[in-house]
């Protein structure tokens, strides 16, 4: 049945949008780290580096919610994702 999985390579529009949205936290929480490795300014009492990380963690569920809606809206079959 290995071959049966091959059909899933073509990507629906909703999945593309969802992947794009999900990429944002990866950029902000991994690739951006060398540029935000600073102690100051303090924001909300947190040193800047920690504030930045907490901020993007807090925003991630909202991005995933948008990804969820995008898949529902643009993918056929009622948001069943990639299948």
């Amino acid at each position, binding site marked *: *049945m*290995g*071959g*049966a*999985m*091959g*059909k*899933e*390579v073509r990507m629906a529009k909703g999945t593309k949008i*969802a*992947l794009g949205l*999900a990429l944002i*936290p*990866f950029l902000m*929480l*991994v*690739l951006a*780290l*060398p540029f935000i*490795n*600073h*102690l*100051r300014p*303090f924001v*909300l*009492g*947190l*040193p800047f*580096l*920690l504030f930045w*990380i*907490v901020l*993007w*963690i*807090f925003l*991630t*569920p909202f991005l*995933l*919610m948008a*990804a*969820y809606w995008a898949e529902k809206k643009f993918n056929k079959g009622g*948001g*069943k*994702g*990639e*299948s």
Partner: protein
Amino acid sequence: MNSALLIILAAIVLSAAVGIFAGRKVKMNLENWTVGGRRFGAVLIWLLMAGEIYTTFTFLGASGWAYSRGAPTFYILIYGTLAYIASFFILPAVWKFGKRFGLHTQPDFFVKRYGSRTLGIIVALIGVVSIIPYLQLQLTGLGFIVEVSSNGAICSNAAILLAFVLTCAFVFTSGIRGAAWVSVIKDILMIAAVVIVGIGVPRIYFGSHGQMFRALAEAHPGHLVFPGATADLDVLWVMTTALLTGLGFYMWPHIFGSAFSAKSAETIKRNAVIMPFYQIPILLVFMVGFTALLVIPGLKNGDLAFLELVHRTYPSWFMGFVGAAGAVTAMVPASVLVLFASTLLAKNVYQAGLRPQAGEETVLRLSRVLVLVIMGFALLFAFYLPNALVNLLLIGYDGVTQFFPGVVLGLFWGGVKRRGVFWGLMTGFVLAAVLVFTRHDPFLGMNAGFVALVINAVVTLVVSHFSRARVEDGRQMA
């Protein structure tokens, strides 16, 4: 008998009772025992997944790293979030594949997808070797927490023995369902303890967390940026480690397997959306470690920071409450770890490799016996050789993350071949082990497991590409 001791014992016994009760009305077969009959709704799945994420390491390790290493500990906050994002895309597809073919375990996935029992056995063995040290860590951590928080009233070996005999009992009777229900108690106690202490101690000693961070920035200017108090855990290490552990998190056999117990792919997807909020308590754990660095500097063992600070700040009954939370926090992950380790051995090694004619009932019976055997082994190590498995623990994550290319390519790309996955996995696993054991981790500033993962992915793709012409993959090898 002091009040702390009473609270801890009550929590352990109550948890076990709930766990045993959870499986009472369910007729046990392999399907119900390992994947809860694939009927867990949003709440149970959330509790189970959350229950597996917060281990004794969260209590002791994260605060200990904040105390002794500083900023590199932030990778814990990052990787969890990356893991939930990855799970949003990967787990629903894993669930659908599992539902379609009635899978129970992670090696089942490899056997079915790549038509190779040998690959299944290798995946099962790497899984078990990674799980056992992790299980022992829960045991040792529990003994440590209980002994310190009851002020030495219970010796740690007695606490370990009691907690884990009871854990075996509820795994034996209720399987995964028991673990999910005990998670209810665990999550409430754990979150309460972390929120109270995490918000409390910076306020008590400094007036607010902002003042605490300012004081820390004055006293140790480098502590709150990478590489913190370490020499080699710089920003590149944090980036590669967050990626490795973020992608590897759902590759742990017990967490991968837990996904099968959801009642639909939709349940898992929605769960993934809200999980990142669950990272926020870890921020509070860090604050306890940072406060401890200012209030009680010079601890030889940073992992003691959380408990020592609580001990110094709060009355003894509250210490008992923290101890109770810590004890149950060890029991839940331990129960899932031992459940999957035993199923992996019974189903994917014994049945697949030695006795293909064994029926499901035999596999379930053997799994249940193996729960006792594996827990017994972990207990022996915890009592007599507590440090013997430390080296294995080091490569646990590096090892299970090597499953990632096989899982993800297997789900989303038809072109990946058995041969490619086999050689990729072997290369990645051996390379990770060699780098770690020859003390080349970090390697060129990067996490060694991450380097191995990249090589693994390349080998998987290249070998798959060159074995395209072969037809062998469509067939079962049996």
